[in-house]
């Protein structure tokens, strides 16, 4: 049983006109097995929250805390956060020229498991993870995210989620850019990871579509750098009908 606790998180970014505050005190607690959906208008700071938890160097933490099972996440390097059990499925996965998917996955698995996976079982493991997400085995020899379509990049993220078995996953708009079939396939991947590893999920999305497959326990409305309302699954339906006007005008 793991707990990710975010308390009063304040984050700013450096711009040409000085530092700009993006997160203005975020409070959120996620436990193993729970799924929290975050919905909010463009530019409200959802990705900033995701990146800040993962440790992207662009963001400066100006206040608050993030703890995973009591350990100070903000004090850890990016790779230490992954080793502690955090995973970020990115809104825009990064291309890494010249590095093959299979080399990348094996290097990551070696780092996270503390030893190189046995070659024979590893090949089978990767193959079945790819098959489960309907990915052509040829992806293993391609360079990481290079020339992948938007949807292929998202499948690749969820394949990593299944292989690397984190405790907590932040999915930043994993559903954007997926066709109807891919949405179902990717959602099933997330649900398998939940079932197999008692994964806690922070799911950032603009659409209720994905919430039909991945059932949230909590829905949070994010606006202007913080959570402005919390509720159950029905809050998502309300947002879809009414938009964010009630929250941004305040």
């Amino acid at each position, binding site marked *: 049983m793991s707990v990710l606790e975010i308390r009063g998180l304040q984050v700013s970014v450096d711009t040409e006109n000085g530092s700009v505050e993006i997160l203005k005190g975020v409070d959120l607690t996620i436990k193993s097995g729970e799924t929290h959906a975050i919905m909010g208008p463009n530019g409200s700071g959802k990705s900033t929250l995701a990146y800040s938890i*993962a440790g992207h160097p662009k963001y400066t933490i100006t206040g608050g805390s993030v703890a995973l099972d009591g350990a100070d996440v903000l004090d850890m390097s990016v*790779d230490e956060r*992954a080793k502690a059990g955090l*995973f970020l499925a990115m809104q825009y*996965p990064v291309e890494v020229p010249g*590095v093959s998917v299979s080399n*990348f996955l094996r*290097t990551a698995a070696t780092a996270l498991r503390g030893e190189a996976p046995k070659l024979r079982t590893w090949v089978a493991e990767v193959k079945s993870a790819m098959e489960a997400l309907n990915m052509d085995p040829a992806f293993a020899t391609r360079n990481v995210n290079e020339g992948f379509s938007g949807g292929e990049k998202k499948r690749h993220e969820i394949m990593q989620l299944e292989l690397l078995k984190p405790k907590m996953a932040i999915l930043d708009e994993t559903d954007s850019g997926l066709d109807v079939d891919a949405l179902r396939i990717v959602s099933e991947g997330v649900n398998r990871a939940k079932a197999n590893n008692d994964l806690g999920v922070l799911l950032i999305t603009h659409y209720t579509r994905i919430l039909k497959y991945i059932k949230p326990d909590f829905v949070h409305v994010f606006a202007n750098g913080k959570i402005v309302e919390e509720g159950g699954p029905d809050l998502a339906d309300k947002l879809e009908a009414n938009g964010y006007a009630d929250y941004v005008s305040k």
Partner: protein
Amino acid sequence: MSVLTTNYLTPTGREEAWRFTPLKRMRGLHDGSAIVGDRNSLVTKTGLPKGVSFSREALSPLAVSDDVIIERIRGEAFDVAHLSIDAHAEIREPIFLTRSAGALDTAELSRVRISLGSHAIATIIVENIGETLLAEDLEISLSPGSSLTFVSLQEFDAKSVYTARHHAVVDKDATFKSITVTVGGDVVRILPTVEFTAPGASAELLGVYFATTGQFFEHRMHVDHAVPNAKSRVNFKGALAGRDAHTVWIGDVLIRAVAEGTDTYELNRNLLLTDGARADSVPNLEIETGEIVGAGHASTTGRFDDEQLFYLMSRGITLENARRLVVRGFFNEIITEIGNEEVQERLMERIDGELERAGA
């Protein structure tokens, strides 16, 4: 032993061709003060297949050179190490040449000829290793329809100085591909040059170099399109790490008035891994006719991409390993062109080691 003659103009460092080179570190190769030893260090590494011969003989140069060191070599060294591939021979396994001896207190003046008969196909890998002071005039002649992959590996020890011209003369419908790798030595200066003598010829000059603390590596291309309908591609990738690591890439491509239908593109990309290193990159395209298929060049110099490092690290990979992956990935495109797993892995490990030593 003899002292190099000084009939030729000694470079001062003000000449265009020498303006980047640290002459003081050339150990007298450039001004004739180096004592010439009698070494013929180039040897075959394994037995030669049928259709291939290697011998020392007197040969006159294939092409003129305006490089003073090449002129001196020709004035002093008459024996040429000659690797010859018979016409129509198709040699599947790479032919390895390596260095048997070296010294820093005396210089070796080396002349090498590689010749392919018509329609011959071969891959030749030259391993330049050890501690040596070496000046080399290497000429390659490709008869009509022949095809050569020429891999030149500068894996010298730290104090070596190597200055060379690798000149290919490419005849009708012949295909020349070179992969020049420079990862070792104190001063390495190579002139990969190509001239086409008949239409339908093509050349691909690929290269990688990785200079760390204090090393100077210069690659000075010259591609002469003197006939119609020839094609050339140049793609060199370099990385630098550590104080006073310095690389120079010059890409001179000349399309003469007669060279209608020319198709050429040259590219140089540099990765500056630490502060204190310097990469000079000078593409230079001279076009004397408008009737061409295409001509272009690009040159970029960048640093580690933070987004790439973040992505890799977010999967648990340490910063050190993430950098290693990115650098390997950067070079991978060209290293895999060698087509020999053992050599490729050896080079990648050398690159890992250089990266580690430079503390990048």
